[in-house]
């Protein structure tokens, strides 16, 4: 096609027929690409399933997660009435897994959300403003970054004492530095792009530039990164409970259940491994989902 000639009228609706404020129609195309990706769709359904059995636990099981009976202790998988077996105090494992997911998911997703807000804000500020403020933020983050994540989480939790609140706090602290780094990097990159300069050159204010040009281009990668952090978060937060530092008994929680069933591994080996399987599954789904998002958001990859 030659440069200056008009080509054939396309099937697209001309913009004149759809007056709209200049907002990006980009997210729609991302959604379309996601729907066409079988792996992402599959893991999304699995995650929705996990969400359903945990939040809707009373709908899928009529058992009680807290009471068991000595008569039904450590039954194997496939026992009538307890299709996933029972734990060391005779509580139905299926029921415990459904209810336990609530805590596990909460303790994994909430810290990442907190870190996303705090870290994302600090990172965007550091990346866009740069200079002394940006430098200060990044140097402080470097210090926290110097701790391996599990070590920092365990240290904070171990010192503050166990409990769900402290675990969430500890994990949020752990996830802020990586989110600041990612946000800072992508923002600083976006800031240097010519179109940001062009917007500045046409008199757009800093806040408008951040909202219309920087955030739109930066939010995607930050969110994708946060999703992949959830997959780490669920492993660490269950790990904290596994060590007895997170959720306290008799609350059901996958990591905690794994730890208490571990003592019974010689009696009911398969039952003992079940809660860990749930952690693994959830973590993997979040991981694959973030991979799917990442490729769906790359405009240049998918023409």
């Amino acid at each position, binding site marked *: 096609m030659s440069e200056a000639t008009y080509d054939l009228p396309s099937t697209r609706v001309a913009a004149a027929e759809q007056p709209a404020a200049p907002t990006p129609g980009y997210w729609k195309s991302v959604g379309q690409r996601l729907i066409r990706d079988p792996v992402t769709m599959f893991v999304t359904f699995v995650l929705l399933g996990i969400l359903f059995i945990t939040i809707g636990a009373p709908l899928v099981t009529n058992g009680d997660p807290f009471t068991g009976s000595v008569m039904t202790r450590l039954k194997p998988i496939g026992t009538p009435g307890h299709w996933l077996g029972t734990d060391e105090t005779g509580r139905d494992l299926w029921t415990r897994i459904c209810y336990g997911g609530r805590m596990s998911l909460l303790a994994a997703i909430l810290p990442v959300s907190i870190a996303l807000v705090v870290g994302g804000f600090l990172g965007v500020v550091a990346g866009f403003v740069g200079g002394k403020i940006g430098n200060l933020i990044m140097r402080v983050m470097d210090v926290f970054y110097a701790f391996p994540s599990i070590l920092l989480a365990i240290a904070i939790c171990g010192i503050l004492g166990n409990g769900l609140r402290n675990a969430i706090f500890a994990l949020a602290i752990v996830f802020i530095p990586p989110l600041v780094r990612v946000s800072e990097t992508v923002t600083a990159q976006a800031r240097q792009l010519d179109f940001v300069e062009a917007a500045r050159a046409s008199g757009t204010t800093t806040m408008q530039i951040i909202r219309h040009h920087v955030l739109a281009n930066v939010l995607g990668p930050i969110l994708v990164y946060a999703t992949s952090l959830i997959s780490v978060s669920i492993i660490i937060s269950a790990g904290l409970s596994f060590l007895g530092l997170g959720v306290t008994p008799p609350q059901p929680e996958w990591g905690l259940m794994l730890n208490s069933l571990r003592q019974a591994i010689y009696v009911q080996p398969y039952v003992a491994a079940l809660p860990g399987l749930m952690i693994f599954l959830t*973590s993997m789904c979040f991981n694959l989902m973030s991979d799917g998002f990442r490729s769906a958001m790359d405009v240049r990859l998918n023409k």
Partner: protein
Amino acid sequence: MLVFAIRRLLQAIPILLGVSLVVFGLVHIVPGNPIDMLMPPEASPEVIAQMKAAFGFDKPLYVQYFLWLFRAMQGDFGLSVFNATPVMGQLMVALSNTFILAILGASLGFALGITFGMTAAMFHGKWPDKLFSALATCGVSLPHYWCAIVLVLAFSVLNDFLPAQGMGDDSLPLYQRLEHLVLPVITLSLIPMGVIGRLVRATVLEILGQDFVGALGAKGLPRWPVIRHVCKNAAPPVLAIMGLQFGYLLGGSILVETVFNWPGSGNLLNLAIYRRDIPVLQATILVLASFFVMLNLMVDIAQAAIDPRIRR
């Protein structure tokens, strides 16, 4: 090069100071004096005051910090408040045990990861590639404490092949003590294997995709220069991630050590938390985090030595 190395070294100092401040601050966020928490309620005030003075807990916080830091730099972390033995001794034993696991686990994981990653890249798009990618995705989302339990299940519970607990007595013959290592080392190797494998695959594919490498191959030149080129360019990023992964193994083995009852630094940390043994807690976290910083530093310098463009 030397300037770069010295500069990175100098940059590490404020980070290390920051780390020490965080560790110290963390312990003192919790209100109350560690001795008050430890002493039985019937202890007389004089005894408590005496204990505080003995452990230095009676001084103002900043004095405590500088004293602690000053001594720590000389390798003196004080006495454990739990059993009044030098913290340093306990820490050295625990650290060496952790090191054994981390080094073996990392070596195994790196070797497997590089092999698999290279294979996958060579067979790009064919079944070995797909199989490996699936395995690696599993590998990076594995809760390693669960994986440890599954391994125990498979090799100790269902089949009595390997020991599941501890590191074996000194009195045991060597091969039996080595047997104790097998399961923990395999467990620890899985995550680095997945991470390194994915990275090697991606890096090698990227380098192979460069035009001039394709041209080298197309001209039917010997494969050796191509391989050398690939290795030279893939080394810096792989090296960086290896360093990080080794650091994670050191600091993150606490969960695996718990499962296998391995008397390493993770175990020590765990005990210190339960005993509220502040000096041990502080020392363990500080030393592990400092290792991590130094490791990153060495990786940076090694990277710059391989690839001069990285020097800034």
